[in-house]
């Protein structure tokens, strides 16, 4: 497809749902409802909060309750077309599927998934990206359409029957004949892209290293630094933890809502049980859980690590605790130089 058609094509997708994509709000790039198609920012930085927020919202009402009991509240579910999702984040959704779509299915997540179309978009690695190491730099499933920006033209992969319907919407914009030259352009682009990665590490050995360094003093070093601010969990595309609370209306009637919002295993009350026993009172134990989960546990369970190499923890942690520094410290068995 010619780049000049891109915006018009996206505009035509409104028929399939509200358009969402990376747009700048108050100086920060966010996945948000798109007011006009030309405000979508592609080809640059990644939104700080990942696309998971459109499927596993930061905060929403699970139920409304009154004297007759609980009624599910699905008002947060909306038909969406999400534009500009990079490969790593498409992988992150597939990881979240493993948790939320497993029986019993989380109906809130499932309904968001069912009602959302994903228009993937190619990216070039930023300074902190290491998706090549996590095997999430390319994507073969999990999208309806995927645009690869080859400069002169977009190579468009169709990933679903819905994606096909979308193409049919503006059939004249697309050229079905992929020439040999096009393929060469694409391969060249892939090779150039592969060379752009600045950081990498060996993920394959991480489960073993994690297992063997359970008692390592490295954890105490990181625990000493960790601010327990929870930002790593909020920005991580595969963190799925949430908590639930009941909020009553100011009224004599027992009416209100059951709210669900993002939580983090970095917070002190995360493993606190009624009666006061805290299974993870120590900061080191909380950090260990997070990294074990990202680099080992998920792999044990689902065959792939929960880290998708997006580099958000690298960009976000104010005290440089992230997948790269922790993996390096555990691998070398030495703490990072100050």
């Amino acid at each position, binding site marked *: 497809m010619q780049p000049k058609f891109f915006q018009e094509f996206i505009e035509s997708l409104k028929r399939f749902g509200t358009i969402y994509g990376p747009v700048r709000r108050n100086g920060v790039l966010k996945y948000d409802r798109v007011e006009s198609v030309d405000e979508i920012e592609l080809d640059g930085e990644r939104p700080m909060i990942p696309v998971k927020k459109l499927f596993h919202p930061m905060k929403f009402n699970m139920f409304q309750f009154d004297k007759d009991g609980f009624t599910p509240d699905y008002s947060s579910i*909306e038909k969406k077309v999400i534009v500009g999702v990079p490969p790593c984040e498409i992988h992150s959704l597939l990881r979240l599927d493993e948790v939320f779509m497993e029986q019993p299915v989380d*109906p809130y997540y499932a309904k968001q998934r069912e009602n959302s179309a994903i228009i993937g978009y190619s990216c070039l690695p930023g300074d902190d990206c290491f998706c090549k190491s996590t095997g999430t730099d390319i994507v073969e499933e999990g999208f309806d359409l995927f645009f690869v920006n080859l400069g002169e033209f977009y190579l468009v992969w169709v990933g679903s029957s819905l994606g096909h319907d979308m193409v049919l919407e503006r059939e004249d914009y697309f050229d079905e004949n992929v020439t040999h030259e096009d393929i060469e352009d694409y391969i060249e682009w892939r090779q150039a892209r592969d060379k752009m990665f600045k950081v990498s590490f060996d993920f394959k050995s991480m489960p073993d290293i994690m297992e063997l360094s359970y008692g390592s003093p490295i954890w105490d070093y990181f625990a000493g630094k960790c601010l327990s601010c929870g930002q790593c969990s909020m920005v991580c595309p595969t963190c*799925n933890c949430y908590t639930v609370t009941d909020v*009553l209306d100011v009224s004599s009637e027992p009416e209100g809502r059951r709210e669900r919002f993002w*939580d983090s295993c970095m917070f002190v009350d995360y493993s606190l049980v009624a009666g006061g026993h805290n*299974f993870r009172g120590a900061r080191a134990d909380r950090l260990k*859980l997070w990294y074990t989960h990202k680099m080992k*546990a998920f792999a044990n369970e689902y065959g792939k690590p929960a880290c998708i190499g997006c580099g958000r923890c690298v960009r976000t942690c104010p005290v440089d605790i992230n997948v790269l520094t922790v993996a390096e410290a555990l691998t070398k068995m030495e703490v990072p130089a100050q």
Partner: protein
Amino acid sequence: MTVCNHEDNNPFQPEAARIVRQHDLIKDHRFFQVRFVDMKRAMSFTYNPGQFVMLSIPGVGEAPFSISSTPSRPGILEMGIRRTGKLTEALFTKRDNDIIYMRGPYGNGFNLDQMRNKDIIIVAGGLGVIPLRSILYYVLDNRDQFGRLFFLYGARTPEEMLFRTEFFELKERHDIECLYTVDKATSEWSEDVGVVTKLFAKLPEIDPHQTNAVICGPPVMYKYVIQELLKLELPKNQIQMTLERRMKCGVGKCGHCALDHIYTCIDGPVFTYWDTLHFRELI
């Protein structure tokens, strides 16, 4: 464009349940008999010993509670609840016929298949007897499916012994060996005095490979009870225990009870001793 489908199966949906009867067990511990209001649901509701349910009070919240009754006596669900948090505080203000909300059952429950036709040692400490009461009656109700049954229960004082009358009545039966102990006795106490591990000396000879143990009690208890069971040479995977963790959803979504790659709420709360060696944070 809001999409709403009423015909869904929402696993978080709390359903109305009636408190059929409730009474105090000991101070701050109360016994609840609960039944789903929807009779069809009440009658079809079944579970494994060792499983738990999530109880809700609208506006207060939701929390997990072990089931203390046996599925062999269907219709009514029993729970022993200690006043210890916000939800239990509110639960203790409820009276007979009040409505609460319930969903479940959750968790794996005890591995009954592994236990069938074998001898069983139940070891309970304090409040830990609540989930074990479920398997205790399950075995008694299906007596022909199991071998010998030993029930070891330790409480701090005779007053703090839960289900005391009931459990002393069990002593009359010949198909179960009941051994009770308290840390601190009163004058009328005729049973043992001391920690629960002391009771192991009273057990007859057992065949470790033909025996299963189930444990529940305060965190400190596990280590010492396991030592005793290992002395008896029970295989590590024939020692089952039920563990506590913070659970919010009960269905492996919210993450709070995560341990390594498992969720206590779906992979537990019953684990074998071997599991605890494997997943270091379990106990």
